Structure formats: structure tokens, C-alpha cells
């Protein structure tokens, strides 16, 4: 059985018989004639319920002239055009084929070794800067990612680029309408959105900044969640409470290499993480913005280059030497 789909203009193309990947909502097929393209076909049950909404969003995303630069963006698998089956039914869309390993494998205390055997801090920072650049362009275009699922950020092991997939779940203003982002993992979600019906609320830059800070922390800390605390409450409860164990007046940092790793991060970067996770939990305006993160990560990158910080992904001991940046402290900010 071969699968053929058509574009709105009637051009038809054959898909690989079996999808090369499956998600909860859709199957993704290769296109033998165009190796750079893949086609996402929503599962029939999903189409039965939401075909019209999905189609409206995909059509708006692929046709709004304000968004053309995103269509061409090398870091995005933005929907290019809708595809239809032979009976003319809407089935999904075509997009660029993205390459790379899911960021939840990179930001993982164990799993990174296989796919990124030489992973070091400069490499992590380079991926994060690539991602931040793309996110900044999305925000400029009024697009909010909303669902910070690390499995949708693909890191190319042979370069420092990150490509974002599953763009159709994002919050987009297009063709005069707002299409919301109905999903998110609670442990990546800003406190003001916890427990809300996400299909009915707007994501804001501030809610993005909160989720982003969690992502940055996890990537810099080998998958450890910033709100993992020993002795009781899980990450979601700690998000609601704004209880972040690192920095002064904390307590409850899990045993293991985490404090060591934390101690090797530049003071200025830690200050931003602390600010966002403590004060920034209840006070959205206190969260570090993307332009600020870019500055601080570039500073980290430069200082790594000068040999000021350990480049190992998991330094064996806490930092002992005084930090050679602008701040001089004899101890890393203690727990």
C-alpha cells in the first residue's frame, strides 16, 4: 500500500509506507523524492475531533506574510503547506526534515554519553545560544512556544545547532487570529499557569522566560530539575511555592554532583537563575529575559575560552579558586 498526498495546488507526492517516527498526535513520513522534506499526518482520531482547528492553524502559519521568515528559518520545522489525501481530505502538513538528538538526551545525567561522548560546557553553551537566537526571533514574530518539551528541541551532534519541531503546538498570531498552545508539561510551566486550562489562556513573554530558565538549568545541570528538592515536595509543588534550593537561604539540594556543577557556573549566571526561580516565581517581571540570557551565556562562553571555568560537563570537585570575574567570592553561593 503506497501513500500519496497532494498539496492544495494538486501536486502529488509519494510518502514512505511506514512512518519514521510517531507521536501522540501524528505520524511523520519521509518523502523519497525530496529527502529534505517530511510530512506529518495526524492520526485519524485526532482529525476526527480537531481537523478544522488544526487546518486553520496550519494554513494561517504557512500563509501569513508576517511569518515568511520563520518558514525559511534553518532552526525551525515550520509548516510549509497543507497536504490532502486522494479523496481531498486534509491530513496534515509538509515541513523541513530536522536532524539531531532530542535535548532531553543531552540534558540527562546518563543518556548523553552515548550520543554526545565529548560533551563539554562550551558545547552545551553553544547549543543554548543557538536555541536562544531562534526563540528570540519567534518572540519577535509574536510566537510563544508554550510547550517547552525538550524532546522537541533537536541538537545536531555534528554542529552546535538546535532545530525546533512540533511547531504546530505553539501559540501563534496569524491571519488575524490567535491560536493557543493547549499543552505543556506541568514541571516546565510557570506558576501562574499551573492548573489552568491551557487552551484558554495566553502565554506571555514572562511565562516563556520561566519555562526557558528551567530548560537552561536542566541543560547546564545534566538534566537535574531546578526544583528537585530532597525530602518531600515534587518539582511542580516547588514551582508553585517558588522554592529553589540553590543560593543563599536555600537548603535541600540533592546529594551528588549537583552542587559541584552549580559552583562552577559563573556568579552572574547563577544570580539570574536564582532571581528567576526565587523572586521570579511569584513576580513575573523579575524573570531574566532572552536578550539578558544571551548576554550572560556569551560572557560564560568568553570566560570558558579564557580558561576561567572548568569546561568539563561534570567537574569532580567544587570550585575552590576565587571566581575571576567581577565578583569575588571565596565560596560558591552556599546552600
Amino acid at each position, binding site marked *: 500500500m503506497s501513500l500519496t498526498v497532494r498539496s492544495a495546488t494538486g501536486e502529488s507526492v509519494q510518502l514512505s509506507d511506514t512512518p519514521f517516527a510517531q507521536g501522540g498526535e501524528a505520524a511523520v513520513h519521509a518523502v523519497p523524492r525530496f529527502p529534505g522534506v517530511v510530512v506529518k499526518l495526524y492520526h485519524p482520531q485526532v482529525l476526527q475531533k480537531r481537523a478544522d482547528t488544526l487546518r486553520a492553524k496550519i494554513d494561517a502559519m504557512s500563509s501569513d506574510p508576517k511569518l515568511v521568515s520563520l518558514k525559511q528559518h534553518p532552526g525551525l520545522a515550520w509548516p510549509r503547506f497543507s497536504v490532502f489525501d486522494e479523496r481531498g481530505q486534509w491530513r496534515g502538513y509538509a515541513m523541513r526534515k530536522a536532524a539531531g538528538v532530542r535535548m532531553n538526551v543531552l540534558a540527562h545525567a546518563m543518556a548523553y554519553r552515548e550520543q554526545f561522548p565529548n560533551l563539554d560546557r562550551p558545547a552545551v553553551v553553544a547549543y543554548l545560544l543557538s536555541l536562544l537566537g531562534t526563540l528570540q526571533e519567534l518572540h519577535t514574530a509574536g510566537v510563544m512556544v508554550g510547550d517547552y518539551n525538550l524532546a522537541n528541541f533537536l541538537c545536531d551532534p555534528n554542529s552546535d545547532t538546535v532545530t525546533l519541531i512540533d511547531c504546530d503546538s505553539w501559540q501563534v498570531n496569524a491571519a488575524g487570529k490567535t491560536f493557543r498552545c493547549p499543552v505543556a508539561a506541568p514541571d516546565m510551566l510557570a506558576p501562574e499557569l499551573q492548573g489552568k486550562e491551557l487552551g484558554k489562556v495566553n502565554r506571555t513573554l514572562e511565562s516563556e522566560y520561566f519555562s526557558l530558565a528551567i530548560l537552561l538549568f536542566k541543560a547546564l545541570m545534566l538534566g537535574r530539575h531546578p526544583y528537585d528538592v*530532597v525530602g518531600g515536595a515534587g518539582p511542580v509543588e516547588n514551582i508553585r511555592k517558588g522554592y529553589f534550593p540553590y543560593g543563599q537561604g536555600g537548603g535541600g539540594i540533592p546529594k551528588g554532583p549537583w552542587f559541584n556543577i552549580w559552583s562552577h557556573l559563573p556568579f552572574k549566571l547563577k544570580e539570574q537563575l536564582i532571581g528567576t526561580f526565587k523572586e521570579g516565581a511569584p513576580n513575573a517581571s523579575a524573570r531574566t529575559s532572552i536578550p539578558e540570557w544571551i548576554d550572560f551565556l556569551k560572557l560564560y562562553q568568553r570566560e570558558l575560552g579564557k580558561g576561567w571555568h572548568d569546561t568539563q560537563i561534570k567537574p569532580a570537585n567544587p570550585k575552590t579558586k576565587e571566581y575571576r570575574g567581577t565578583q569575588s567570592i571565596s565560596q560558591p553561593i552556599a546552600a
Partner: protein
Amino acid sequence: MFAFANFMNTPKETTMNESHDDLIDNPTPRCPVALVLDTSGSMSGQPIEQLNAGIELFIDEVKRDDLARWSVDLAVYTAGGLADCIQSFIGVEQIVGFSPLDASGGTPLGQATRMALDDLEARKKSYRDAGVPYYQPWLVLISDGAPDYGWQDAAQRASALSAQRKLVSLPIGVQGADLSVLSQFSSKPAVALDGLKFRELFQWLSASMARVSASTSSDASVHLPSVDSWGSV
């Protein structure tokens, strides 16, 4: 009944230490799975052979998944003559091999379930102490009969936890099982295994674990694959 003696290459005492370190070095959210297996006399022959093959397959498939292997913690309890914990909770990644179970004696499923639920509580405490998030634990109970005696309290505990969504309790009946009794171990009815499709059952279980461990949040509800491949309707 120590058929799993070389389930791993370390004796039980050090197992505990290893698991403990594991929670420190590996902060991946955990999905604990307790298998409670009827290994009474009636399971001997084909059923126990297929069950063994299924478990081996499960371990292999979880190990092959790049995220689930760091996330799934397994414990195994047998009810055959005596109730026994033949493997206390350990990361699947650390399991080296296993020797097959054999079947004999009565069916103290209640006692085996009680042990599993107690160990689950202890395991959850270790997670909290280590600051490691965890998904809803799974209790997979497989029997071709009915528990011998004194099972009601264990069934009630499992079913209450499952009603509170603190446990995914999955009683599975092999041919000859008393499904109405097994159903009392969960807030959802027991599923009858289609013939001896242990292979399909454990494939489904590993696929479910892959879904659970790939879901980014320990709080999210997960859409599991359909049980059509092994459940009979």
C-alpha cells in the same frame, strides 16, 4: 524459589547500596514497576516458560530505549508456595541477566502483593529523600488462579491507591484465573490474557514505559498504547 538468584551479578545486600547511589547520580524521574507473579504449581509448563520469556524480553526492550532504561525501576515478587521478593527495586539498566522462574506450590498472592506495596512505599520515600521525581508506580499482577488466603486487605490497599491515582494497578488473568477476584486488586477491572501472549503483554509494558519515561513531566497523564495485542475481549 530463588530462581532469580543471578538476576543480577551482585548479591542482594549490595543491591540496596547500588540503588541508593543510583538515585544520587541519576536524577531521571523514575517509574517503579512491581511485578507480582503467580508461580504456583498450576503455572508450570508452558505458562511459566512463556512468562519467563516475557520478562526477559521486557528487560531487553526497556534497556534498548535510550530514556526508559534510565527511568524504569523493577522489583519482582513471586507467589509459589511462599511469597518472596526475588528482586528488590533496582534500575533496569543495572540488571545483568536473569535465570528463569519455576512454578510450584500454592498461591500466596495476597502476601506477595503486600510485600510489593510495602516496598513501593519505601522506594517512594527513597526517591523523596534523594529529590528524585517519580511517575505513578505500576503494580502488575499476573495469575492463572486466585489468591490462596488472606488477600482482601492487600487487594483493598492496591485498589484504593489505584482509585486515588497513586498506583497503576494492573491485574492480569491467565486462562483459568478468577477475574472477579483479581479485579478487586484495582479500581479498574482485570484484563484476561489472550492465550499465552506473555510476549505481547511485556512488549506492551515496555512500550508503555517508553511513553511514560518520554513524557516530560512526572505529573502529566500519559496516553498508553492499546492492550489489544494481548488482552482478550
